[in-house]
């Protein structure tokens, strides 16, 4: 008989752990996969569409964009959330806390700003249209964003709102214990296996590790404490990743004026984010306002700005660019070659 019991999340964030918090994480691989896929998507546009970039320049653009995203994401995080990172150091590598990205801390809005600045510089130095580069970036990034959401799921973070225990997709996220539960975690300490001094971490990490390693006693003890939840990260991967990409791909079957695709990305992403957040647990300590989360409220101006940008861009008397479908090189005057 098919069991409808919620799945207990036991996925390991590391593909390969080297110790001390270092190793190859799925989250890092999602960035890498996103950049590789972006490279192939942009290359496709430069090969069959209209672009100021030749295919041989695509790698340069992706590397410039990646540097912008990393620098912007990290500096943005430090600037907006944790300024101590700028002037605090530790006794272990990489010593300067600003560089300790393995402990987390990237701000998505910082990453977006970093990408915009990087593309502005790249466009100016190489004679490209900045708006066209923005379109290429917008077209190429949703799948990477989707990979990032899958990595969020693997990490067991940013989980969904509670759902019925017999909901077929219900998941028990152990991280809930350390983030939201009032349960006394000390009661679990006797159940934990001894940890060598070199791998000593906090109690919370040891509990999560024991669950990932399949410790039956710990799993039995924590399961009743966990709430069945929506795997909202996977819904977000589909909505903010796949659906946004498909809509943009539909828009860009033929060349469009620069920023039409970029503006459409903001609008469609915003709508998908609003939908997906109905299933995502709101950030702790931030109350819903009129039933909407902070992420949903912030997405409303994003949708409005995206629509305005796309509509204004579509009215500009400049050459349509891009397109990924072969044989659709249409000029603004309507002449098809």
């Amino acid at each position, binding site marked *: 008989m098919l069991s409808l019991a919620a799945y207990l999340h036991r996925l390991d964030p590391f593909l390969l752990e080297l110790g001390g918090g270092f190793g190859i994480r799925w989250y890092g691989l999602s960035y890498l996969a996103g950049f590789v896929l972006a490279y192939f998507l942009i290359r496709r546009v*430069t090969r069959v569409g*209209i*672009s*100021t*970039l*030749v295919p041989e320049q695509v790698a340069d653009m992706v590397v410039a964009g990646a540097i912008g995203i990393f620098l912007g994401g990290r500096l943005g995080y430090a600037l907006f959330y944790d300024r101590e990172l700028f002037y605090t150091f530790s006794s272990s590598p990489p010593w300067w806390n600003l560089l300790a990205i393995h402990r987390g801390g990237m701000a998505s809005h910082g990453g977006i700003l970093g990408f915009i600045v990087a593309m502005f510089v790249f*466009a100016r130095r190489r*004679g*490209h*249209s*900045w*708006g*066209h580069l923005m379109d290429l970036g917008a077209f190429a990034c949703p799948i990477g964003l989707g990979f990032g959401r899958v990595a969020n799921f693997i990490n067991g973070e940013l989980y969904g709102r509670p759902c019925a225990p017999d909901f077929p997709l219900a998941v028990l996220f152990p991280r809930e214990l350390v983030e939201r539960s009032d349960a006394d975690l000390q009661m679990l300490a006797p159940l934990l296996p001894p940890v060598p001094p070199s791998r000593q971490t906090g109690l919370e990490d040891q509990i999560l590790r024991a669950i990932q390693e399949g410790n039956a006693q710990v799993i039995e003890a924590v399961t009743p404490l966990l709430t069945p939840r929506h795997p909202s990260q996977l819904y977000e991967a589909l909505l903010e990743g796949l659906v946004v990409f498909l809509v943009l791909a539909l828009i860009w079957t033929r060349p469009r*004026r*620069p*920023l039409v695709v970029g503006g459409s990305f903001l609008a469609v992403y915003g709508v998908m984010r609003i939908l997906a957040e109905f299933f995502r647990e709101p950030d702790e300590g931030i109350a819903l306002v009129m039933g909407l989360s902070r992420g949903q409220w912030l997405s409303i101006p994003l949708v409005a700005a995206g629509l305005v940008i796309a509509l204004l861009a579509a009215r*500009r*008397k*400049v*050459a349509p*660019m891009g397109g990924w479908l072969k044989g659709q*090189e249409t*000029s*603004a*005057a309507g*002449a098809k*070659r």
Partner: protein
Amino acid sequence: MKVLAIAVRPVKEGPMREVDRVELSPESGVAGDHGHSARRGVTFLSAKQWETVTRELGVNLPWHTRRANVLLEADTLAPLIGRTIRIGRVCVEILGETDPCAKMDRQYAGLREALVRECRGGVYGRVLVGGEIGVGDVAEEVWT
């Protein structure tokens, strides 16, 4: 802006040859053209301004007397400097004004003087993305 005519310079100071279509590339500029550099891959001339020049001189000279590659249906090309245009799949970054040299006076006395102001000599640019262009194609400005 429509492409009204295309010409290549097979040899230095030799006669221009008009063609209907031509291949442009970042490496070689205009195919069949004898001289080019990375920055000066192709040259453009405004039909309206050429008309003004010949009217002022009171003589009927073919447009390629100026030894430019592409004649565009445009009042002036000066606003394009610093911008990128695309013709079909071909993208060209317009880098500057083509200064008329003393050779122009050898073509017709006083021609150089008539070309030096208001960007009448046309503009040059580097080919960012190559491909074929043809007479009748539309040149459009790319938003930069």
